[in-house]
């Protein structure tokens, strides 16, 4: 087992017919069929996978259970699903289909109690609260929402504290300005968040190399998720699914072991 998890984060967009990768939460580029991507990550022996439906809340609908069931049955590793979950019932249905964790954002803004409700049924480790953080035009970090649902708490630090107090087992912290840029993680953000949160922190946004992964965990992230790094190659952003070798990842943290 590695000391830190490294998680491919795939974005589902049914309006675009499959998986996409965004740039700063915009400009979705089609990268392929989710079932085939899951199959490839299986064979690469990835230890956890995250699939986020970026259209569901915007389209005011729930998760696509049929598709998630197909993906979960193809997926040999633990699967975290996020996007469009509105009620505890929907989360429990996802667990019954083989999903291991659910990631919530808009639902928490509407009803913070949903975290506890799900955690009471499935355990805190199964509930991830995702917090998107974006720099304002003066450079000030603020909680952000891409879905049109206003964040319940615009102070991102308070949002992290609230999530933990509500029973979140994990915080998914997304640096919106780094999304898809391959420009490196927002280490300052990770450092601060990891001091506030006493649950595992999954950092996502900007990862472009093994060194970035190491820097993020050094800054305090328990796990690192990445999108573009695992689906793009080179200056043409050519779609190519990759994942580091186990030995490469192990070597990153060998000093700590």
């Amino acid at each position, binding site marked *: 087992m590695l000391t830190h998890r490294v998680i491919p984060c795939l974005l589902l967009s049914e309006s675009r017919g*499959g998986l996409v990768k965004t740039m700063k939460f915009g400009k979705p580029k089609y990268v392929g*069929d989710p079932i085939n991507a899951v199959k490839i990550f299986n*064979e690469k022996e990835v230890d956890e996978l995250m699939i986020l439906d970026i259209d569901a809340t915007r389209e005011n609908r729930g998760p696509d259970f049929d598709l998630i069931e197909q993906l979960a049955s193809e997926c040999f590793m633990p699967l975290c699903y996020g996007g469009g979950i509105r009620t505890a019932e929907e989360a429990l249905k996802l667990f019954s289909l083989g999903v291991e964790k659910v990631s919530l954002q808009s639902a928490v803004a509407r009803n913070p109690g949903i975290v506890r409700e799900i955690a009471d049924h499935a355990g805190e480790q199964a509930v991830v609260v995702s917090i998107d953080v974006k720099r304002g035009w003066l450079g000030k970090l603020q909680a952000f929402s891409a879905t049109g649902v206003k964040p319940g708490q615009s102070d991102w630090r308070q949002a992290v504290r609230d999530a933990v107090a509500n029973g979140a087992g994990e915080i998914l912290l997304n640096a919106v300005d780094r999304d898809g840029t391959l420009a490196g993680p927002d280490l300052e953000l990770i450092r601060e968040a990891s001091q506030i949160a006493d649950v595992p922190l999954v950092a996502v946004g900007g990862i472009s190399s093994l060194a970035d992964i190491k820097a993020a965990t050094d800054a305090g992230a328990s796990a690192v998720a990445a999108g573009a790094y695992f689906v793009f190659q080179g200056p043409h952003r*050519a779609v190519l699914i990759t994942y580091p070798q186990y030995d490469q990842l192990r070597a990153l943290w060998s000093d700590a072991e």
Partner: protein
Amino acid sequence: MIPNVQTCSRCIMDTTAPDIVFDEQGICNYCSDFLRKKEKHLPFDENERLRRLNGLVAMVKEAGKGKKYDCIVGLSGGVDSSWSLVQAVRLGLRPLAVHMDSGWNSELAQNNIANLVRGLNVDLYTHVIDWPEIRGLMEAFFASDVIDVEVLYDNAMLAVNYQQAARHGLKYILAGTNIATEGVDIPSTWNWHKADKRNIIGISKRFGGPRLKSFPSLSTLDMVRYIGVNRIKWVSFLDYLDYRKSDALEVLQRDFGYKPYAHKHYESVFTRFYQGYLQPYKFGVDKRKPHLSSLIMTGEMTRDEALERAAGIAYPSEKDMEADRLYFIKKMGWSEEKFADYIARPERPHTDYPSEAAFFQKLLALYRRMNLKVGRLVWK
């Protein structure tokens, strides 16, 4: 399956190829054609080969002066195309690697491509066809019961290579096509003309498939334009390299962590299933025969060895075959009944649907009669 009544005494082609004929020694027209082709297109000695190779490299470099790249190398992740890329770089060329993703890439292919482009520091361009679109086109092709479902992949692959060459103003596409591993022809009834865009559109329309949007198609006239106007040359690059598959495989594994797979073209899960299951069980065709026959003819494999490798199912095990079948059904969203029905239905010829193959043949005949030199390299 079509029963086999006679096998060639030199290669392993047999009477499952409908137009096969044997001479008095039991030698067939397929391997005899191979020798004729080899004599016509391959250099007769090592000096001549090197002269042509150096000539080609010089021309590619000259044409690429001042450009970011000097040629296109199509890269599927298979041995032939991987070796083309390695050699292009080693010869000092600056290729842009181009890959076509139709939604069926295997982990092996992705791994091999990643190791190669990173190890060689080559830029990659990938064209991904929207899965709902290619799936719709495949559905229509299955419904039509034509043999060559791979026309879809091959047509798009050719189109992407030519498109990228044109976009970057490049004159050379160095392709993994070659005589050494492909010189024994696939019997004409086993596949279909690859630049038949009309056939693709016609079949899709007839069976309620999608219009072409993200599918990068190639028609006969597109080809004429790329060859005649853009002056792009498709070069069977491996024919210049004294290509031996087993040697190439050894170097690729040693230097690039290359992962090999069981049979030719098995880098795509669909191609593997199509050649290993659909073709034998629906169409009575086994492409291992021409593929392995080529290796016999170049002396890379004995006939006994080839017979052994072509015996039994075209998968390492029944379990692997069933795993691919279940994956195919799941990915296409088929039921077992639908699958059984497809396998049981008789084949229909491509000519039952709109086609531009005859038009292409006419143009090709004209091209040959006029002895035009565009689109290919001619060595004196």
